[in-house]
């Protein structure tokens, strides 16, 4: 097996350009698309305001400061229709007693119209809860302060209340009234969509697949050179021949993905999240799956040129479905989202994004890794069955 691994590395001189080009493409296109900001995805959130108090206006103003979502005002019926059609992520319903609840110091009633639960809804819920809690705290601070001031002087209660409220709000924003020592358990503040990260992950996954498929595809060039047959009649077993070829491809793939992870970190300052181990685990599982997928493709086609023709078609379509080229968050079609689950790309991209973009920990790597490993074993089994050894 060692002789086969050594051979594959020796023959890298035929293929090193593919690896260099694919790595450069991933980094180059990340630089172009990831940092251009031209196509930053922000899900639309509709706001239905049934309250007429100034609190609801402040609440809306606060929400609009958040860059994760694009907010639009709407009526109830119109919002229900738009959300149902999937044209907006969700609608936030501010009840008519919103202002009174704040005044009373009660948690205000805010409804969310949604079709499905996803991480954006979760982020929005956290945002709403955070703003309303802050408003309640500000109101409480203002009331206590006004109550205290009323003991000494005659003041305009309403005006003073609003004035103190504004001061409290400003303090939250800039003066950090509370200092908390923390460990980072979340990335990017609110854990929202980060276009640069998506581009980095998507392009890294996409371009590494070429290296992986063409790397294991060298078994087809062995056939073309008649060396495949010559090895088969030697004492080297079929298991060693295939095992050696796959191990070499795997090492090459891991090396390339490693360069891309490091490139993301040091060229684009990408924070890979709190569980780099989880990111590596998913990447390693993906490399395994795509090596097996390359074996499967190589067993279906007959020559290396056929592989070179088929591979771009297969890899581009699966990358498009799997969310490498654009985020799956913008896809509304259930058919496409179901198909995405059948691609290894989806599990790798979403798994890594969960950790690097949405602040999940190592546990977020377990399901994608298991699914990728399962897919890899399936591809390997079919590939071996179809591979011609004569």
């Amino acid at each position, binding site marked *: 097996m060692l002789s086969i691994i050594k051979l594959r590395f*020796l023959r890298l001189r035929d293929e090193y350009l593919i690896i260099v080009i694919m790595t450069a493409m991933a980094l180059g296109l990340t630089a172009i698309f990831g940092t251009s900001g031209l196509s930053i995805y922000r899900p639309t959130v509709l706001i239905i305001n049934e309250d007429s108090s100034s609190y609801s206006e402040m609440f809306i103003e606060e929400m609009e400061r958040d860059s994760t979502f694009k907010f639009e005002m709407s009526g109830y019926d119109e919002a229900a229709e738009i959300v149902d059609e999937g044209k907006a992520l969700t609608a936030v319903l501010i009840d008519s007693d919103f202002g009174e609840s704040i005044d009373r110091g009660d948690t205000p009633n805010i409804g969310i119209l949604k079709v499905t639960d996803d991480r954006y809804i979760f982020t929005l819920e956290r945002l709403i809860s955070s703003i309303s809690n802050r408003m309640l705290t500000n109101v409480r601070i203002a009331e206590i302060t006004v109550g205290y001031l009323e003991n000494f002087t005659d003041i305009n209660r309403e005006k003073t209340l609003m004035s103190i409220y504004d001061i409290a709000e400003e303090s939250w924003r800039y003066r950090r009234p509370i200092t908390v020592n923390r460990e980072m358990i979340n990335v990017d503040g609110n854990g929202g969509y980060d276009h640069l990260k998506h581009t980095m992950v998507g392009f890294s996954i996409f371009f590494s697949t070429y290296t992986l498929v063409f790397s294991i595809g060298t078994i087809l060039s062995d056939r073309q050179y*008649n060396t495949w047959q*010559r090895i088969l*009649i*030697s*004492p080297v077993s079929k298991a060693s021949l295939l095992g050696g070829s796959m191990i070499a491809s795997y090492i090459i793939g891991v090396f390339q993905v490693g360069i891309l992870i490091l490139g993301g970190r040091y060229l684009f300052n990408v924070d890979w999240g709190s569980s780099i181990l989880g990111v590596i685990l998913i990447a390693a599982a993906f490399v395994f799956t795509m090596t097996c997928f390359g074996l499967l493709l190589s067993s279906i086609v007959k020559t290396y040129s056929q592989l070179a023709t088929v591979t771009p078609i297969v890899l581009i379509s699966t990358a498009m479905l799997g969310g490498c080229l654009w985020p799956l968050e913008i896809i509304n079609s259930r058919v496409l989202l179901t198909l995405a689950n059948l691609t290894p790309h989806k599990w790798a991209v979403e798994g890594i994004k969960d950790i690097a973009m949405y602040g999940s920990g190592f546990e977020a790597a377990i399901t994608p890794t298991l699914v990728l490993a399962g897919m890899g074993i399936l591809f390997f089994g079919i590939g071996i069955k179809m591979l011609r050894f004569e």
Partner: protein
Amino acid sequence: MTFLKVRELKKHFKDVKAVNEINFEVKKGEIFGLLGPNGAGKSTTISMISTLVHPDGGDIFYKGESILKNPKPLQKKLGVVPQEIALYPTLTGYENLRFWGNVYGLNGSLLKQRIEEVSKIIGIKDRLKHQIEKYSGGMKRRLNIGAALLHEPELLIMDEPTVGIDPQSRNHILDTVLELNKKGMTIIYTSHYMEEVEYLCSRISIMDQGQIIASGSKGELVEIIKGNKRINLKFDNISDTLLGKIKEISYINNVEIISDEVAITTNNGEAIFKDIINKVSETDSSILSIDVKKPNLEEVFLHLTGKALRD
């Protein structure tokens, strides 16, 4: 115990009987020839002996043990020179030899020594550092042989090793085969070049359409056509009338056009010339030359199958 024994070996590809129940034996230390035209089944036979292709029937025994049941002992002691060049073109000659040596378990100083020895045998020592895609056809063929010699095989199978090369490289290869055999290596040599098989092999099996149609030493095979003579005639003009007239001669067994000559076989060498001259004089053609051929394997093949080896 027979060194290699092939029994009732059979291989079909769909409806084509590529090899049809053939039997032969190879003795230790001999050069055994498999002679036949392209498509006769030689390469399929070789592929089955070298364990690449599994037969549909029959068995092959190496030192009394079935290689279908246990191929490993043969694989370790077998060297195969395939008909096509089976090397990595972008690697150097040295890298190719090192890889094939590794495959057969050679490493370190032993491998270095064997590469040294083999490169001397095949005569390309000074070109080992070059990528083989820059080699001439003859040099590639020699390296193709060298890759099969590194582990000092007991049995060397050479499948048409001289196809498409210059005469100088061809002679070098033939001399190498004889040299290896002198050192005790058993060789199975397949070719459709009758002269090579005649020159090298002590025993020969002639194959055609998947079957062995004759076996024996060269002398034994030529005995088959004892009394038959092959005469090649050159005319200024070959016409149907001419061929018809020649065929009228009763003791002519076969008439065939081979390039610009008419080849006839007959068992009456004495009176034939007079009859031919008489018959030709009845046509518009004139005889330019008459060449009486010495009996060889080509004649044997023609006699047995009614066609030339190169057909």
